[in-house]
């Protein structure tokens, strides 16, 4: 019973604003951390493994981490999506990864993996927020 998260899944009172902000920030930085912090161990672990792995596959497929360029709206939106994954993005930037190889056959696949990982993490953050608010 100790490993099951069902006991923690009962609706509860909304968290304080500071705790809410902490949960959202941690959830952005480390996908699934917001769930782990709130006792949803299984969900948190799935997100913690799956999303960074998806991001890493995107880099392996020679996808590109887009720059924040307001002049090109689609690139800008792609850049926002890329940044949604948090720490893996920061690490990739420090390692000079994500330059992207346009001529590679897997380039578009790589971009799709990178952006989807970030966008899915945005949903994970919203889910963690809902749990902290006592809505789930």
């Amino acid at each position, binding site marked *: 019973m100790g490993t099951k998260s069902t006991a923690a899944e009962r609706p509860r009172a909304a968290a304080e604003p500071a705790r809410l902000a902490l949960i959202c920030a941690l959830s952005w930085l480390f996908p699934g951390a917001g769930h782990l912090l709130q006792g949803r161990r299984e969900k948190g672990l799935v997100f913690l493994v799956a999303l960074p792995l998806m991001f890493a596959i995107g880099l392996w497929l020679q996808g590109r981490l887009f720059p924040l360029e307001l002049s090109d709206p689609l690139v800008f939106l792609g850049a926002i999506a890329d940044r949604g994954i948090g720490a893996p993005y920061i690490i990739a930037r420090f390692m000079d990864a994500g330059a992207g190889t346009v001529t590679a056959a897997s380039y578009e696949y790589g971009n799709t993996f990178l952006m*989807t990982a970030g966008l899915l993490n945005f949903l994970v953050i919203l889910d963690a927020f809902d749990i902290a608010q006592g809505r789930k």
Partner: protein
Amino acid sequence: MTTSHFLLMVLYALFVSLVFAVLLKDQPREQLKTGAMMFGGFIGVAYVLGWLMFPFPL
């Protein structure tokens, strides 16, 4: 790098189905059912669209 487009699509479908199933459902049984349906839907639609693009290329 030689990677199968179909394999990459399957891998993508697997990750997206997994995350959505875990997000949307709380019970492992429901998660498995939702994930499997979503994954099957991804593959099925991609397969049908792939064949449709054979006689009608974009």
